[in-house]
């Protein structure tokens, strides 16, 4: 076997998710989970090059206003202007630089700019609700947006989602890929939301709640919230 082939068969596997830190596949109170998730057990896959590599180079250029959802239209969107910032780290505590973060969200009235959203709340012509950015060398990202509203859904009688921003993060590997939701502190809807409640561990759940941050807050302009994201990282020892 060639030298290159030898090197390529030595893999540094990634950490597995700790018990209770992730939602189960099927969570009955979230009613669409049983029909859209496997009944048979997943097959445990030792990591190979296919899992520990992933799209790290970004697949489209980032435009100047992509991380400022309040400057993407002719006028300013209605709502409470906020700054959302934080760091992307791996589970070893190392910053993940230059990784793509994408967000999407409802407007201040709780309405998505989407043909399938039938919530009778107003659309805002100045708010599309999508943003993207790359983390810097220290894994730091920053978005300017407006605080999304809560909105009703049809999961159960009188079901309302707590205000949230969807986050999509790549990390360094296809297995570190993470799509999640960021919530706001003290939301009274947490107790009634099966998506938030699907995470078994209370501490893990709270990791999805951003923290109000006075240092990030800018006087006479916008409230600041901090939301750090941890993606899976590699084990210390390589494996052949």
């Amino acid at each position, binding site marked *: *076997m060639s030298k*290159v*082939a030898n090197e*390529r*068969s030595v893999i*540094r596997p990634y*950490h597995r998710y*700790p018990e209770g*830190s*992730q*939602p*189960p*596949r099927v969570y009955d109170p979230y009613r*669409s989970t*049983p*029909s*859209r*998730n*496997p009944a048979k057990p*997943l*097959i*445990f*896959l*030792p990591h*190979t*090059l*296919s*899992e*520990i*590599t*992933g*799209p*790290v180079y970004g*697949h489209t250029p980032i435009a100047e206003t992509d991380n400022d959802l309040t400057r993407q239209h002719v006028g300013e969107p209605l709502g409470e202007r906020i700054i959302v910032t934080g760091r992307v*780290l791996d*589970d*070893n*505590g190392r910053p993940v630089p230059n990784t793509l973060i*994408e967000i*999407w969200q409802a407007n201040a009235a709780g309405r*998505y700019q*989407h043909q*399938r*959203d039938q919530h009778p709340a107003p659309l805002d012509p100045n708010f599309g*609700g*999508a943003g993207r950015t790359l983390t810097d060398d220290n894994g730091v990202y920053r978005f300017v947006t407006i605080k999304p509203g809560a909105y009703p859904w049809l999961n159960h009688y009188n079901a309302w989602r707590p205000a949230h921003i969807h986050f*999509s993060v790549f990390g360094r590997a*296809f*297995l570190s890929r*993470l*799509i*999640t*939701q960021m919530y706001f502190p003290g939301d009274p809807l947490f107790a009634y939301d099966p998506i*938030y409640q699907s995470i078994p561990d209370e501490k893990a*759940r709270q*990791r*999805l709640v951003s923290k109000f941050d006075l240092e990030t807050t800018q006087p006479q302009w916008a409230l600041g919230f901090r939301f750090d*994201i941890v*993606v899976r990282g590699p084990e210390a020892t390589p494996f*052949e």
Partner: protein
Amino acid sequence: MEHVPTPSQTAGPYLHIGLTNKHSVTQIAPPAVFGERLRLRCRVLDVDGAPVNDAMIEIWQADQAGRYNHPDDAPSPDGHFYGFGRAATDENGTCEFETVRPGSLPGPNNTTQAPHLNVAVFARGILLQLHTRIYFAGDAANDSDPVLALVPAERRETLMARPDPEHPGSWRFDIHLRGDQETVFFDV
């Protein structure tokens, strides 16, 4: 491990706003890339065999020489190759990609992995993405693939893309999220 990873949450029914309206990538390999070009048509189905019209599929694959465009792999000889694709499913639960057939690549314990594409499925009702693989039906390398060897023989078929008899160069792959024909998903 010092930190516990952030929990996953569903991408929800409106994932298109942030991920695919402007930023879908259906050309996994642009036309300049070396290799056998193919079209891949994926379909996502639920427990009743009904099309899932609000899913997103992401694909990650090696180039025709079996190399990933990633700093942890050996440098790809083909500078045009990227290897990532993503698309939302339509009303029929389908989405299409254009790419090249990947090469074989090293697996654990001096094994060789057969040509395959790595797949992640996101959707409303999926709290944590589902990972599967697409292999090519009839490829002799499948017989010695170390990952297929982990799958019970009677379920390996669910991981095979099949040539579309009506469209030469096109392959089809159905993802059954649950049910009698349930696709094999991996715990990665």
